[in-house]
Structure formats: structure tokens, C-alpha cells
């Protein structure tokens, strides 16, 4: 059984060199530039930055899962096992989304005003940034789950996969009970109340959902051809 490291290196190199990561990153940066301004309440801005990580993560999964021509995927699949190869692909996409989420959280934390929504209560900067980081990770995990369930090997025709991915990303942000929605509303209500939340329960939920989605996708790699 091959170690995961060379697979991750291969997938990361594929993603970086394909340059298909550019559109989601540029779109995400533009989204932040429009919605986040210097001096705005920190938790509101962090919630906004975290929410946008979710569709980006799903998009990264789609890029990674469709980056390799099928014949090349077969060569790697024979060497490492198709499930393992796909695991590396999904982990790479998650890693890229998490990295983007961390970078955005740092930037937003530095630029924002450490106060509640009505600017009456001061909030501690580092705990607030930490809460934003957890929310960003929740969204990266859930976005990875959405992406894993709406691309190869589950959905193969782009005509169905892309709308499914977009719909999945929107639903993951708005449906009651979604960890992403819970994490973001924790930030928003915390901002209104002047307290820093710790959205750890959503993190657990998102981790479990992502693990389940990844397990299903990897298990299907050898069955859907």
C-alpha cells in the first residue's frame, strides 16, 4: 500500500500547475473586497469570509477530481488503489480551501474593528479570529463534502454535476441543521450580543459529514468505472 504523501504531492502539483485554481481564488478575493471593509465589526466580517469558503471548497474538489485524464487516473489507481488516490485528491482540495480560509481569516481579523455590531462592546481580537478560523474550517469541510458528492465518481456529466454542486453549496449554507449555517449564525449572534462564540459543535458535525462523504466517494471509485 502506497504512502499517502507521494499521492498528495502529485495531486497538489496537478492542482497548482493546472492553474484552474485561479478563478475560484480570484472570485473569492473579489467577494471579500466587496463585502469586507476596514473597520467593520470583526465577527460579521469573519462570518461573511467563512461562508464564501464553502462554495470555493466544493469548486476545488471539482477541479481536483477532474484534473487527471482517465487513463492517467487508471495508472495511479493501479499503483496506489483508486480509493486511496481519490482520498488524496479530496484531501488536496480540502487543504487548498482551508489554506484560503486561514489566509482570509487572518486578513479580515487584521482589517476589522474588534467590536460588536453596534460598536458598543469591545471584543478580544485573538479569540474572535479563532472563532472565525473555526467557522472557515467548518465551511471548508462542508464544501469538501458537497464537492465530493457532486463530482466523479458519483456524478460524471458536467451538465448535472455543476448545478448539483451549486445547489448543494447554497443548501449547505442555508438549511437549518447545517453545521455551516450554525457556525455562521454563531458568529452573527455573537456579534450582536457582544460575545465571542466557540462554534465547536458545528466543527464536529462538519468533520463527521465530510468524513462520511469522502468515504462514500472513495468507496465508489472502483464501482462506477
Amino acid at each position, binding site marked *: 500500500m502506497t*504512502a499517502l504523501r507521494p499521492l498528495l*504531492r502529485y495531486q497538489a*502539483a496537478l492542482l497548482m500547475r493546472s492553474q484552474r485554481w485561479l478563478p475560484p481564488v480570484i472570485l473569492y478575493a473579489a467577494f471579500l473586497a466587496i463585502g469586507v471593509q476596514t473597520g467593520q465589526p470583526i465577527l460579521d466580517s469573519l462570518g461573511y469570509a467563512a461562508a464564501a469558503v464553502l462554495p470555493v471548497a466544493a469548486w476545488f474538489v471539482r477541479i481536483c477530481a477532474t484534473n*487527471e485524464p482517465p*487513463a492517467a487516473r*487508471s495508472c495511479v489507481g493501479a*499503483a496506489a488503489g483508486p480509493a486511496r488516490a481519490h482520498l488524496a485528491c479530496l484531501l488536496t482540495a480540502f487543504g487548498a480551501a482551508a489554506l484560503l480560509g486561514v489566509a482570509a481569516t487572518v486578513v479580515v481579523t487584521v482589517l476589522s474593528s474588534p467590536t460588536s455590531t453596534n460598536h458598543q462592546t469591545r471584543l478580544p481580537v485573538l479569540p474572535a479570529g479563532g472563532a472565525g478560523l473555526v467557522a472557515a474550517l467548518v465551511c471548508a469541510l462542508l464544501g469538501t463534502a458537497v464537492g465530493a458528492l457532486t463530482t466523479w465518481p458519483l456524478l460524471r456529466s458536467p451538465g448535472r454535476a455543476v448545478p448539483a454542486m451549486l445547489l448543494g453549496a447554497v443548501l449547505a449554507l442555508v438549511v437549518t441543521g447545517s453545521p455551516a449555517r450554525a457556525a455562521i449564525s454563531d458568529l452573527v449572534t455573537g456579534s450582536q450580543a457582544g460575545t465571542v462564540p466557540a462554534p465547536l459543535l458545528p466543527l464536529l458535525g462538519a468533520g463527521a459529514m465530510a468524513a462520511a462523504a469522502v468515504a462514500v466517494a472513495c468507496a465508489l471509485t472502483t464501482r462506477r468505472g
Partner: protein
Amino acid sequence: MERELLLEGVGRRYGLGRAAPWVLRGVDLTLAPGTLTRVEGANGTGKSTLLRLIAGIDAPTEGRITGRPRTAYVPERFPAALPFTAAGYLIHLGSIHGLSRAEAAGAAVEWLERLGAAEYARTAMSELSKGTSQKVAVAQALLAEPELLVLDEAWSGLDTAARAVLEDAVLQRTAAGGTVVFVDHDPRRLAGAPDATYAVVDGNLRAVTGSSAPQDSYVIVEVEGPSGAEPPAEAARLTVSVEEPVPGKLRLTVPDSHSDTVLRILLTARSPWHVISLGEESAAKGVLTPRPADTEVPS
């Protein structure tokens, strides 16, 4: 330690639902280490599906496959749409096959050289010709000396020299105890060499006996080696018989198809063997026709 790859009652159909037709059904197959197996069949009969199951790229819908060792696969058409140089891609694949990066880099250069594509090592994959891409696909499979090598029309697109290198590499792999399974449209491919040939007919395997591969000629190789030395095990596996007419001299009877490989093993052994003479023997008549000892030997 040597395990057989076993397919037991293996069936495969694509798509979900009960209406999907079976491509293969009830396939039983044993692939022992050190054997070469050829799979034949008309287009669309499920040869590629069988090879993908053997290589572990697909899972059987029913039945089971056990004992798969370290595996490498060469597809028929290898697309160049990868954002790497040829050498860069091979180093990645070498690491995935379990080599260290330094070993992978060395093996990548070595195999590109053997296949006559050394000058493309630094060329972007997207700029490679179809033939050179196929050489890269062959190199990724061979560079880590896999225990199971699965070749789906791997020869198509290769030039004559590279085809010979791949044939030779296949025989060396089996001589070293590896298992090789291949599909090729050319019936002369590795003629006489396969230990077993199967045809895919109606979703199942039928053993093909003797027909496509008449073993009609042998080569007699007389060699002199270090006194009392045994011939290398890899060479001995490929020979039909070994006699010792005079102490220190050996007379090996080798199927024609394996002779180049045996000679190469003997000549590149740690303590090299001196080839005294080569001769052809027709199995039908048993006549030994002398052939000059300076007959071209692959280097």
C-alpha cells in the same frame, strides 16, 4: 511469500440497476508469479474490463479477487494532457509506486533512455507526440519493477525499437518472478512466450491451447562461466534444459522467443558468462544448425 492472484466467480457490469448487461460473468482465473498471460478477444468483448479488474482499477460487481501484489498498468492510449514534464511525471509516479524521489529520478532517466525517449525528459507532456506519450506510460509502469504488470494494448503507438524493449522488459519481469497479463491486437506479439492464453467469449474466459503460439524453434546457447557456477536463476527459468557436456561449459536450450532475454541476462550477470556458440534447433527435426557466435546480441 509468493502468492497467486485469484479471480473467483468474478462478474462485472456497468451502471446500477438490474437491467445493466453483464460484461463479464463467472470468471475464474489464477495468475501465478513468474507467468505471462495473454488475453484475446474481439473488440468490445470485455478484455479491457478484465484487465481493469485484474489491475484493481475496477472492483468486481460479484465474486472476488484476492492476492493482488504491487501493480502497474499501461493503458492503450495515454493522453498527454498533464501539466508536467515527462521526467517530472515519472518522478511523481515512481514515488507513488514506492520509490524514493532519488530512485524515481534515476529510474525515470534510465527507462526513457531504454525506450529511446531520453531527449524528451525535459519536454512538457502536452508537447509530446502520441508515440512518446505512450513511452512515458510504459516507463511509469516499468520503473518500479512491479510484481503485477497489466498491459492493455501497450505496444500500440510505439516505434519498432521501443516495442522490442517492452517485449524484452516483459520477459525479464516474468523471469524475475513477476506476473504479466497483456492484450495486444498483434497475434505475433510475444509469440510462444505466454504460459497461458485466454479468449474472452460471451463474458467468460476460454483457454486457448497451442493454436496461436506454435513453439517451433529453440536456440542452443553454449556458454562458459566461472567454474562451478550455476547459471543465473532468471536465465534458468526461461530455458527448457541445461546440460553440462564438459565441466565449466553449459549448453542451454532456450525457446527462440526468450533467447535475446537469456543472452542479455547471461552477458550482464555479475560475473559475466562467455558465449561460445549459438545455434538454432528446429523442434520438428531436432537438427542443430550452427549460427555464428557473433550474431547480433542486444546490448
